[in-house]
């Protein structure tokens, strides 16, 4: 690990530090901070040469960061905890979303009103999503899982369909497809409050603290500007990287991120501190993993899996 992390960092000492960021999906507003910072040149200003690598269904963010093929990646916190437990050298260094926007989408008239009602239902979701295990355990229910295929067609065509979705994206395509806006069941309402996070290779982070700090500072500035300023530079870059992005979609998704306070957090007190991570929430997430017997008690330590050291300090 050391060797590859060093070579990744060392190869660029000459001029500016090269950083590869592995995205979890094709470029979309969920990557708004990154693209805005990139488009405005703030990474370059900080002496960083940043490459944003589009993801997809097989983005393998944690594996690519863990093996040093990328230095930083965007992902989800509980899954990342599991991968850290499996031995990947990962460190969660900043929040993207204070709440992971993965929710269940339902039609308005669907009789399911609560998680308990999911018992015996069919749900399209990623079978590996820890939240599913969490629901089964917490409510003592079971349901049938259909593998997630990244499409909303079944949802539009079938009034009884329930599926996992990023609620800052799918609802747009659902309404565009002629169906009424869906209802959501939020994971955090069940007590499952995972983050959308930035993950760094921990060895690289240890060896390049300055670069990481500079990166996160530009990143936070990027989000702030994307949310409160003119998103046009980021959107132009997103369209260049993915020509299927339409203005309507980009605008919708950004609006959802703003309205749902995903980046700033629903906790008004801290809303200026974009990217903040709360160790107490990590302790709860580790507890969830231990309760589900996905890792033995004590195997995961909060200090080892996340760090707020690299974030810009609170004003």
């Amino acid at each position, binding site marked *: 690990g050391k060797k*590859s992390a060093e070579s990744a960092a060392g190869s660029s000492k000459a001029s500016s530090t090269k950083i590869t960021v592995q995205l979890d999906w094709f470029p979309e507003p969920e990557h708004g901070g990154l693209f805005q910072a990139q488009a405005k040149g703030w990474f370059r200003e900080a002496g960083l040469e940043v490459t944003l690598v589009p993801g997809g269904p097989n983005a393998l963010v*944690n594996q690519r960061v*863990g093996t040093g093929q990328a230095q930083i990646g965007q992902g989800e916190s509980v899954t990342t905890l599991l991968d850290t437990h499996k031995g990947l050298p990962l460190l969660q260094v900043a929040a993207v979303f204070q709440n992971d926007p993965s929710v269940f989408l339902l039609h308005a008239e669907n009789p399911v009103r609560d998680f308990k009602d999911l018992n015996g239902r069919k749900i399209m979701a990623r079978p*590996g999503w820890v939240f599913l295990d969490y629901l089964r355990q917490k409510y003592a229910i079971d349901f*049938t*899982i*259909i593998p997630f295929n990244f499409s909303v067609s079944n949802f539009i065509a*079938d009034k009884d369909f329930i599926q996992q979705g990023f609620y800052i994206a799918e609802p747009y395509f659902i309404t565009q497809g002629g169906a009424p806006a869906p209802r959501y069941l939020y994971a955090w309402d069940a007590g499952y409050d995972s983050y959308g996070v930035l993950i760094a290779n921990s060895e690289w982070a240890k060896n390049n603290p300055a670069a990481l700090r500079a990166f996160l500072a530009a990143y936070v500035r990027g989000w702030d500007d994307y949310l409160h300023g003119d998103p046009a530079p980021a959107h132009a870059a997103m369209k260049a990287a993915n020509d299927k992005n339409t203005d309507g979609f980009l605008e919708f998704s950004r609006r959802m991120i703003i309205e749902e306070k995903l980046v700033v957090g629903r906790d008004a007190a801290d809303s200026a501190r974009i990217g903040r991570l709360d160790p107490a929430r990590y302790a709860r997430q580790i507890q969830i993993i231990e309760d589900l017997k996905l890792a033995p008690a004590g195997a995961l330590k909060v200090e080892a899996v996340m760090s707020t050291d690299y974030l810009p300090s609170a004003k």
Partner: protein
Amino acid sequence: MNSRALRWLLPLVLAAVLLAGWQVLHHSLPPTRRFLLPSLPQLAEAFRVHGAALLVAARYTALAALGGFALAAVVAAFFSLLLASSGLVRATLYPYLMGLQMVPVIIIAPILILWVGPGAPSVILVTFLITFFPLVVNTTQGLLSVDRAHVDLFRMGRAARWQELLLLRAPAALPYFFTGLRIAAILAPIGALTADYLVGSSSGGRSGLGITALLFSARNEIPALYATALVGCLLGFALVAAVSGLSWLVLNRWHDSYSPSDK
């Protein structure tokens, strides 16, 4: 004697060499990447831990594979006979059958889920789609490749079309059919696994190998993922062995591929 002993020994030696090579490769990888190629003890451990679950999943996938395979064999035999029955039918139908094979499963997955429903029926259907075409191509080619002199015999005997097809072309095409069957046998379990991955369903903690693989993959349980792939391979080998046995039974008495090299 000697050569017969070799025939058993050499594959075993190669297996040992490959396993040793695997183990060496594992240890020669940088530690951060070692997880990509689990060591043999890790694999064994994965089998120990997940063996029971894999067995359940394998049974489910094996049934789907067999279902799709059997369906493909029957339907392919039928369509091949139809295609071989006349050039006109061939020109008319072949492109659509090809088209059927060329529909990407990943694209029709939502439609299958909606119209056929997730789970076994869709998995069997996808397995069928994947295994069907090699069978049709091979069998049709076999039906067309029949010895000209034998066709003349049947024409002289004023055989009806169907007689020529069933009594001459069908048996003559058997070696081709079995070749197709062997390909289909290899494709069926992996096709069923893939189908399960795309249009399967899991409930009560029971699922096929595809969803199991998806789960292991999401949890980064690489040794278990390899174990899952291995179980898929074993299913494939079992099916191939069955087909080869059947092929020998049917063909050995007359086909040149089974004639002893010296008598």
